[in-house]
């Protein structure tokens, strides 16, 4: 025992180094595997408030652009309202309940391999994990961490992001992922080679999951090729959203989320 203590005291620097280094490595591996880092992420209270402070300064520089975006969105919604047919049939069974919650982006990254976005809404505002995040132009990501006042979004520009989408024209569905190369292009996988593709076709959300409602725009096909086994397409999708300058986003809250989630759990 005495010798053991002596050994530690003699090599205390190396022991400390080894300890801290292995803590850091285990944090890294954890973050690569399942995003379970509970404390040390940007939805943390202190870190969130510092980003909030920084955002309260920098948002003034984007006011003109943001106003323009809001105007565009307003006019789009107005025109939809005016053109709505009077006798639109609403199927009460198929009608899903989605609430929108506006939020402001406090921190955004797009140049790393795994990108996250921090928003200024949290548990206090009724925001939970696995809620979808969109802008007026298209999808942004899915919430993966929440604290009382902030939440962190797993951006679609993250190598762990998997979102179910479909081709608008033919309704064939596949999985959206990112190869971490360009901030404007994401990849659509799992589309059969029988499907006829055209460059410029729109891609929208499929509505199969309880996270996003159907038909939220994602992007357009910019190029496609067959995968290594030559039976599925790998499609490059150009995003409608500019992920590099997000400011105002909406959090989609499905009021039936828990019910659907419970149903899905019986599968396992």
């Amino acid at each position, binding site marked *: 025992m005495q010798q053991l203590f002596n050994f530690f005291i003699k090599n*205390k*620097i*190396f022991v*400390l*180094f080894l300890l*801290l*280094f292995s*803590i*850091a*490595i*285990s*944090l*890294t*591996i*954890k*973050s*690569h595997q399942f995003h379970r*880092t509970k*404390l*040390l*992420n*940007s939805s*943390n209270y202190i*870190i969130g408030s*510092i*980003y909030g402070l*920084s955002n309260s300064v920098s948002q003034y520089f984007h006011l003109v652009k943001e106003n323009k975006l809001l105007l565009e969105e307003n006019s789009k919604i107005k025109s939809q309202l005016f053109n709505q047919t009077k006798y639109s049939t609403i199927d009460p069974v198929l009608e899903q309940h989605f609430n929108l919650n506006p939020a402001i982006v406090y*921190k955004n*990254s*797009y*140049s*790393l*391999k*795994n990108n*996250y976005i921090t928003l200024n809404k949290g548990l206090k505002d009724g925001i939970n994990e696995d809620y979808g995040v969109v802008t007026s132009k298209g999808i942004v990501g899915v919430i993966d961490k929440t604290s009382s006042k902030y939440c*962190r979004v797993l951006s679609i520009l993250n190598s762990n992001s998997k979102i179910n989408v479909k081709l608008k024209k033919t309704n064939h569905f596949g999985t959206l992922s990112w190869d971490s190369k360009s*901030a404007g292009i994401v990849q659509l996988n799992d589309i059969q080679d029988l499907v006829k593709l055209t460059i410029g076709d729109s891609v929208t959300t499929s509505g199969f999951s309880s996270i996003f409602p159907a038909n939220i725009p994602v992007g357009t096909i910019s190029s496609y090729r067959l995968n290594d086994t030559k039976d599925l397409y790998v499609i490059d999708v150009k995003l409608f959203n500019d992920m590099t300058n997000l400011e105002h986003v909406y959090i989609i809250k499905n009021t039936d989320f828990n019910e659907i989630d419970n149903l899905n759990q019986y599968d396992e």
Partner: protein
Amino acid sequence: MMNNIVFVNIMRFFGLLTLQVLVCSNINLIGYINPNIYLLFILLYPASNNRLLFIFSSFLLGVVIDAFLDSGGTHAAASVLIAYIRPLFLKFSFGAAYDYQSIKFSNTNFTQRYIYFLSLILIHHFTLFSLVVFNYNKMLLIVRQTFYSSAFTFLVCLLIYSLFSSKEA
């Protein structure tokens, strides 16, 4: 005098941290290159005997930056590593002038200083990007990112260092 050194290092810790997470990590030169200026804290930390405190504070700095940037523990691991191996590079770069107690970076030859900065920055970035990419089939990507980011970090660090060097303790 002693208090002054402690104060300068505490200020440097928080100053570089703030500058890193609010400014330098958002530069994204040609898409993805950001300078990691917080390394200046580790590079310029006085070469005293208390290595335990030094390694621990380097770890702390890395962990806080990881928390801000949502990068797991990558910055922490790289920082701890270079904090641990730093004496080796002090000896290697400054040779006989290296003395545990009395080394002052402002008194050293500037070529020696460049070698010291550059070697530690390169090792830091290589560790960092190896852990970020975490896939040894993408060695080329790791090496390329290491090279570009190290060059940028080195440049910015030298600029900041020469701006503030008159005040060096």
